[in-house]
């Protein structure tokens, strides 16, 4: 039966259901409620794990690295500056093929200091070799957390579960928490074959010269691509077990005659759905949600975009000197496709600016044929800027 839970509390409960043996975290807004809730579950004897309250995010990532290398299921959570501080470790974890799960409560990156939601933090680590899944709502955050451990352990790759800070982490929603039996059935105990063990001493993280380095990187690249199948399988098996669909790689829905698609990641998908429902006079729109950002599921994206003349990408981040990360990646992918849609890119809701229902109409109106390479901040209020910065 659904219970009204704050997003962070629901995620914490889902983590506990996955029985990680080691949890390490450092407080950072808006992730803090997750680790606070985990700490309370541990204190109340409802969750048996080694909870390591570290002195920095760098150590949070390092502790779970060491714990997973020693064969423990391990979990951490962070956000924004914390993700950037642990970036070096994130690369190291994926490079060593150490499976673990991290929740990223997406938030803007300084400067200027801003604690509110966008997805700049996740975009900053897009090449760190992690599987990156973006959740549309808190129910999906719960279900994705459980799936993430299975995906990580089967692929021997780390998984970052991205949830929009505040919008999801601090919002109360009716949540259907899975039963312990269902989670246990879905997620067998973690058996890490390469664990550090005196009975079978191995060396991990050795020095690799140019003679071997490209092969290691290639293997890592291939492993991430191959993870698509495990991400799909996890979503399918989970739906079969609990009867609840999450996204897998890409979700698309809209009227068959729609020639315009709007693509986004995370919780603004719900806003766009509501906006579409509230404005029947708008042109037909297909809403496309990228749940899996890494690996970038190109075939699934192509299928989701089939028949579109126009694709509008709404990003919660900006790449200075370039425009949009996802926009650019999709333009590059579609560049050699004969029937490619024109791609328009916009940043919206940077630093927690509200993304209202009007966003959809504004995005459609701003995507005209005469500016096909455009990238802009959709909700900019130019009158706040000096003339030369508009």
């Amino acid at each position, binding site marked *: 039966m659904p219970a009204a839970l704050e997003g962070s509390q629901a995620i914490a409960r889902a983590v506990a259901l996955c029985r990680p*043996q080691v949890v390490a975290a450092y407080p950072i807004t808006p992730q803090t409620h997750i680790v606070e809730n985990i700490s309370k579950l541990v204190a109340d004897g409802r969750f048996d794990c080694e909870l390591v309250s570290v*002195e920095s995010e760098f150590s949070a990532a*390092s502790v779970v690295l*060491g714990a997973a*290398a*020693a064969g423990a299921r*391990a979990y951490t959570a962070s956000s924004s500056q914390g993700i950037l501080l642990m970036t070096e470790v994130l690369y190291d974890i994926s490079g060593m093929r150490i499976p673990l799960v991290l929740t990223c409560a997406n938030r803007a990156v300084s400067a200027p200091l801003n604690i509110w939601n966008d997805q700049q933090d996740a975009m900053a680590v897009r090449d760190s070799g992690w599987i990156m899944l973006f959740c549309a709502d808190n129910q999906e955050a719960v279900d994705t957390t459980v799936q993430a451990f299975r995906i990580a352990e089967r692929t021997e790759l780390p998984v970052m579960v991205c949830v929009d800070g505040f919008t999801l982490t601090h919002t109360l929603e009716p949540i259907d928490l899975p039963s312990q039996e269902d989670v246990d059935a879905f997620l067998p105990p973690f058996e890490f074959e390469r664990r550090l063990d005196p009975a079978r001493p191995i060396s991990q993280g050795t020095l690799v010269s140019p003679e071997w380095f490209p092969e290691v990187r290639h293997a890592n690249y291939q492993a991430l691509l191959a993870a698509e199948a495990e991400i799909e399988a996890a979503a399918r098996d989970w739906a079969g077990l609990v009867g609840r669909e999450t996204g897998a790689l890409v979700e698309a829905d809209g009227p068959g005659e729609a020639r315009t698609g709007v693509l986004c990641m995370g919780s603004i998908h719900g806003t766009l759905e509501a906006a579409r429902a509230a404005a029947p006079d708008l042109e037909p729109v297909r809403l496309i949600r990228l749940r899996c950002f890494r690996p970038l599921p190109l075939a699934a994206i192509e299928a989701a975009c089939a028949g579109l003349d126009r694709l509008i990408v709404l990003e919660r981040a900006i790449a200075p000197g370039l425009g949009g990360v996802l926009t650019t990646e999709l333009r590059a992918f579609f560049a050699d496709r004969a029937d490619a849609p024109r791609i328009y890119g916009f940043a919206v809701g940077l630093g927690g600016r509200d993304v209202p229902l009007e966003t959809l109409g504004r995005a459609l109106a701003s995507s005209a044929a005469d500016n096909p390479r455009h990238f802009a901040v959709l909700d900019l209020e130019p009158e706040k800027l000096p003339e030369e910065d508009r």
Partner: protein
Amino acid sequence: MDHQCPDPDRLRLRQPRFQGLTSGHRACAGCGAAITARLVLEATGPDVLVANATGCLEVFSTPWPESAWRVPWIHSLFENAGSVAAGMEAALKAQGRDTKVIAFGGDGGTFDIGFRALSGMLERYHNVLYVCYDNEAYMNTGVQRSSSTPHAARTTTSPPGKARMGKRHLKKDILSIVAAHHIPYAATASVAYPPDLRKKVRRALAIEGPTFLHVHSPCPLGWGHDGALSIEIARLAVETGMFPLIELERGGVTGVMPIRNPRPVAEYLRRQARFRHLFQDDAKAREELEHLQAIADHNIEFYGLTGHGPDALDTEGADTAHRGGMRWA
């Protein structure tokens, strides 16, 4: 025939020691870091997990696809050996395994860039033995100064010249800082005193909680001496008072290796190219020599290293025949 069971201690002495770091690695001849790692693992035996910070020890021991380690070993990054070890220990605790976790870091990875992770690991009381092999500069990157580099030493980023006499700042007192975490056991050791070093490792392993061993580990390349002299030079560091061998429990000094006849610091410095500029005919050079002697004198006085003066029957002193320390007498 004597059929009595042999004394276990005597038996242990006759047995070959466990070689956790085996030969064939790429360390320079006379490398103190290699000796440190070998001696530490001789004392721990095979039931350990090792976390190794980036640095010489990691690089020379694991050129893929080779590894000199015969214990489970992991290297992650430069600045996180303390945290990786903490995570390993947390995993072992969760799994009910009682294997001991050892972390190795150089002075750069311990005093400087890995300091935060070390402090966190100590404060949270993880059951980890952290071993710092201190060669007093960033040797792996080509001898740059660290906060462990002794005052006035030459490195590539503290070169002596017209306006400078080498490193301008003092060597960080890492042991006192570590001890200030109220950990049960912290000690210094030297590659020149293997039985003492191994004894301290065994002592640390017997303790449940964080322990720290700071090992003076010569670097022939960085210090500028023949590799064959590593042990003699390490011994001189102890015998001059430049590197006192002490033990601290919960922050209090509980043991020192006495020096019965402290030697002048110049004897230690003279053998190393990194201090050569201090022996020119120059007022500033003489001043820095006096400064270094004053540091050694302070160590000797502060830790009471001379004890009650020369003792013919002494077997504990750093400079007694028992310790191999009479060769210059």
